[in-house]
């Protein structure tokens, strides 16, 4: 496929239970189902370069198509969930923020810093959205609204072993959060360039306590070494230690990969997406 092409997809507006309907883009592979389902964060960045934050897509449709044709993964469909202006607040694991007064303070300190940065170029903060920690509402939406809709509309394999959350950066955090909060729904999680650094690692601390038992589940992490990713390694090491302490076996139940030279960017995630997809979806 042409990497610059717009991949055909179906757009839905799904009722959220609270607030505005959520835009969701669904892509089906060119093979018959039933399908494993990849629920992917930042859905704007998946299929259409013109809609993508960086002008580059993840190339997920191309990668899934290729891996499926090569017999390396079973058929899988993609559900791209659009983010909202409150992206940071929605993707930040809320229970990690409110775990202690100090965790809340540490996260607020980062937010104050980001706001100050925005103010340098946008004195009126017209482009700033104060984060509201709605991750639990978001997961409720995925579990109680979106997944039932997808399973009733498409030929899916609804079991947790065929249901994955995938995202990068803050999208990696919310994917790990969903894996921990609803392990009987999401048995797979792919977390690329996970933004563990927020609040000096408060989400790592929460993750260490909240991990479900492996029991056939799989979770994937990775990070680059450039840009924002350059700060992730020590935090990821703590997350890996938590995984191992919880009984996750490297290469079996969990996989963490370091990609030297990779930036915090859609192009980097597109380049290595085959790695988590093979790990998460392989039989």
């Amino acid at each position, binding site marked *: 496929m042409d990497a610059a092409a717009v991949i055909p997809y179906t757009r839905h507006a799904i009722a959220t239970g609270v607030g505005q309907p959520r835009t969701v883009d669904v892509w089906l592979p060119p093979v018959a189902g039933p399908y494993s389902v990849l629920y992917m964060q930042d859905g704007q960045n998946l299929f259409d370069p013109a809609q993508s934050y960086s002008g580059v897509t993840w190339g997920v449709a191309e990668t899934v198509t290729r891996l499926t044709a090569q017999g390396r993964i079973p058929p899988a469909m993609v559900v791209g969930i659009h983010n909202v202006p409150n992206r940071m607040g929605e993707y930040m694991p809320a229970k990690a923020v409110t*775990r*202690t007064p100090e965790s809340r303070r540490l996260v607020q300190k980062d937010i104050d810093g980001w706001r100050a940065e925005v103010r340098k170029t946008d004195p009126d903060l017209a482009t700033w959205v104060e984060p509201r920690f709605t991750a*639990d509402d978001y997961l409720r939406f995925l579990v109680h609204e979106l997944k039932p809709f997808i399973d009733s509309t498409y030929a899916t394999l609804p079991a947790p072993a065929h249901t994955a959350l995938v995202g990068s950066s803050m999208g990696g955090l919310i994917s790990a959060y969903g894996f*921990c909060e609803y392990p009987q729904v999401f048995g797979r999680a792919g977390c690329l360039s996970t933004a563990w650094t927020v609040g000096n690692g408060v989400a*790592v*601390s929460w993750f260490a306590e909240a991990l479900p038992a492996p029991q056939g589940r799989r979770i994937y992490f990775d990070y680059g070494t450039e840009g924002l990713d350059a700060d992730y390694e020590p935090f990821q090491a703590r997350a890996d230690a*938590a995984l191992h302490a919880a009984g996750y076996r490297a290469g079996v139940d969990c996989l963490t990969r370091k990609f030297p030279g990779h930036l915090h960017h859609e192009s980097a995630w597109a380049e290595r997406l085959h790695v988590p997809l093979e790990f998460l979806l392989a039989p």
Partner: protein
Amino acid sequence: MKTPRLLPFVLLFLLTACAGGEAAAPPEPHAITPQDTPAPAPTQPPASPLAGLVYSAGSALWQINADGSPASLAACAQGAALSPDGTQMVYAGDDYDIYLLDLATCTRTNITNSPDTVELNPQWWPNVTGAVLIGLNPEFDTGKPALIQLGREGVQLIDPDASPADLPAISPDGQTLAYAHGGQPILYSLSAGRQALDLAAFGLDPASIQRVDSPAWSPDGRSLAWVVATQQGDDFTTWRIQLLILNLEARTSLLLHPYVPLGRGGWPPAPVWSPDGRWLAFNPWVEDIAQTGLVVLAADGSEEHTITVTNPQNTWLDQLTPPRWSPDSTRLAFALSPAEPIFWWLSLANWQPQPLPLPPDAVLIAWR
């Protein structure tokens, strides 16, 4: 250089009372006008129902006057741990040492000076003078309770084996610390040391209580409330969280308000007793969004109210902003996150939540 891995708690026992003084120049005041404040009478204006509520905003400390206006208490504020006499606050600094803030002079004093350890989440130790309980921070642990005596050197680790998930609670007489270890309830007496709390002695089947945490002492110290899991297996949809109230004198127990928790991670914060000991206010983490809200429960189980607001989404309380009861136990101020508006109050006379027009950066501190 200290690097916090997990976030331990820091309990602060401050036993000394510093002399008060003139507050520094107050910051710009802001309007506080409760919607249901009665119109003033010609001669004797009725007192604001919010009079006495203490909060921080704009890095300053405020209290609502009898007429409903905000009065500056201090030009500085940090955290939410205000000393019982209202003259000092304690907080964890960015260097993870504990600081004492004198509200009269806004002087900040590092009272741990421990560059190699992490101390967090201080709280005042009631009925004792000059002591600070802090949490030391081992890897993947929420911290171990430790005591700092103001004016003395060093930190006294209270229970090296403790690993509570939530903040410990100190009894009103200052003699006993309640916390959980491995999901089991622990009482640590300053005189007798550590002792597991035997739930069977309260008529409970310990096997039916799968996890205990988030303790809260009743104001008279005779009862202890915990948040407990009564079902917690592989299938999280069958989980049940309840409030367990132990009467420590009568050796009786009550299990109240069962609900299916939101998700499966984390742990709900402790309930907050009303000063008269009749009520408990808490925000259960409920999976069913229709049941979310602040719950006010009679401690004997005889009455229960779920307080919802106009925007019910995700109306949970974090530990930064626990509900604050009025001294006469008739009113309650609380913060919901991230619903708008953030702050609310209600009178137990009508159970109707009213917006509490505090600045968005406000933190509810106390009601006195």
